[in-house]
């Protein structure tokens, strides 16, 4: 039912087509995180792939920096309702990462794990075939700590909490296990176009 007296400030048609339901466009780059920003020392940075508890492959920062690099321009959508268009990222696609590690995904699910003990679940199918990267640069500069640097997961087609900041690895899991926000009321998959914000959203 209409809200009495509300007319709204509609986005331009060109914006409206790119805005998932319930989102609005921002020019800023707001920050959402659960706690303080961890400061990650590149000399001690490693990125590790695990199958459950078992390590499969690991990269130092120098090794990671030598992997093939990809640049993307993508719209991103935060569950707190802002969307930002045409964000520019550079990093290593999950496809290239797995190829370099010589790893074939052993399961269909994984948890992206961060240095601040944050984690979030993403199906493997949503990370491969050019759908996700480990991003280390934003808008042409090293990714700032506040935005997840030195490296964050980037899964632009899902709500942005899935794009784990300060990422330190991917852990393959036998079944789809909820991560930090997923255990605190947020949706297991998080497709912005289906508005899957909270646990019970269809």
């Amino acid at each position, binding site marked *: *039912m*209409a*809200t*009495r*007296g*509300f*007319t*709204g*400030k*509609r986005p331009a048609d060109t914006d409206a087509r790119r805005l998932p*339901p*319930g989102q*609005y466009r*921002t*020019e*800023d*780059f*707001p*920050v*959402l*995180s*659960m*706690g*303080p*920003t*961890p400061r990650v020392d590149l000399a001690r940075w490693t990125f590790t792939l695990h199958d459950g508890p078992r390590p499969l492959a690991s990269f130092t920062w120098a090794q990671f920096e030598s992997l093939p690099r990809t640049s993307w321009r993508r719209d991103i959508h*935060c569950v*707190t*309702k*802002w969307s930002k268009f045409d964000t520019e990222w550079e990093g290593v696609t999950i496809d290239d990462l797995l190829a370099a590690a010589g790893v074939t995904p052993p399961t269909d699910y994984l948890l992206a794990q961060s240095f*601040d*003990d944050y984690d979030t679940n993403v199906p493997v199918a949503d990370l491969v075939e050019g759908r996700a990267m480990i991003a280390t640069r934003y808008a042409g500069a090293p990714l700032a700590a*506040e935005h997840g640097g030195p490296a964050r997961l980037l899964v632009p087609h899902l709500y942005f909490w899935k794009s784990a900041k300060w990422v330190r690895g991917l852990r393959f899991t036998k079944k789809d296990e909820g991560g*930090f*926000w997923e*255990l*605190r*009321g947020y949706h297991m998959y998080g497709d912005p176009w289906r508005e899957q*914000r*909270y*646990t*019970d*959203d269809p």
Partner: protein
Amino acid sequence: MTGAPPAGAVPATAWTEATLERIERQTARVKSFFVRAPLRAHAAGQHVDVRLTAPDGYQAQRSYSIASAPGDPLELAIEELPEGEVSSYFHEVAQPGDTFDIRGPIGGHFVWRASDGGPLLLVGGGSGVAPLMAIVRERLRTAPGVPTLLVYSARTWDEVIFRDELLRADAADADFGLVLATTRGPAQRAGDLARRLDAGLVAGVLSRWGQAPRHAFVCGADAFVETVATALVQTGMAAAGVRTERYGGPSR
């Protein structure tokens, strides 16, 4: 880390109808909107989503923190933002009796319950004090002995939301402390600050308080939260004890 979510943290998130019961002006830019809606009981620190619908079906959504204690009428303290789509509706159009869509309560992390105890440090900037106010009120009702300090940064004395209630609590409750930091106006009380919070001020305030906080809740604009949370970790607080909620940029 907090482990398993507390009971009741998973929200019932179906949209339902809210009725605006009462509007109370807090400051020049902030009003409290008291809302009746058939929502589950909230925990202090949680928020709701609000959805407005135009006659042609166009909808706009925003999240607002709940300022009231669990069990009290739902209070949303909304700041009118320049060009704000939803905040301007609430400030300029909405009247008691109006209805809109609401869902929640939402959020299982930025939440304090009496069983969490203290010492409890709350740091808010501007309208970021709203969820902290729910915690202040919940603590007063359920755990008044928990040592608690609210450090609240506002532009001026007149822009301190909930000012009278906070001053009363500060005067009446030996275990509750209030430090106001005004960034564009003079300090009004002994112990208040007339500066923007930085790492040195945060350390100084904690030192004067004399408690080592076990839980810290920090809410405000991005840069404010970043400064304060970083400063708390520098004072030796465990990062896992510092919970943050950030309001995005000015385009909300």
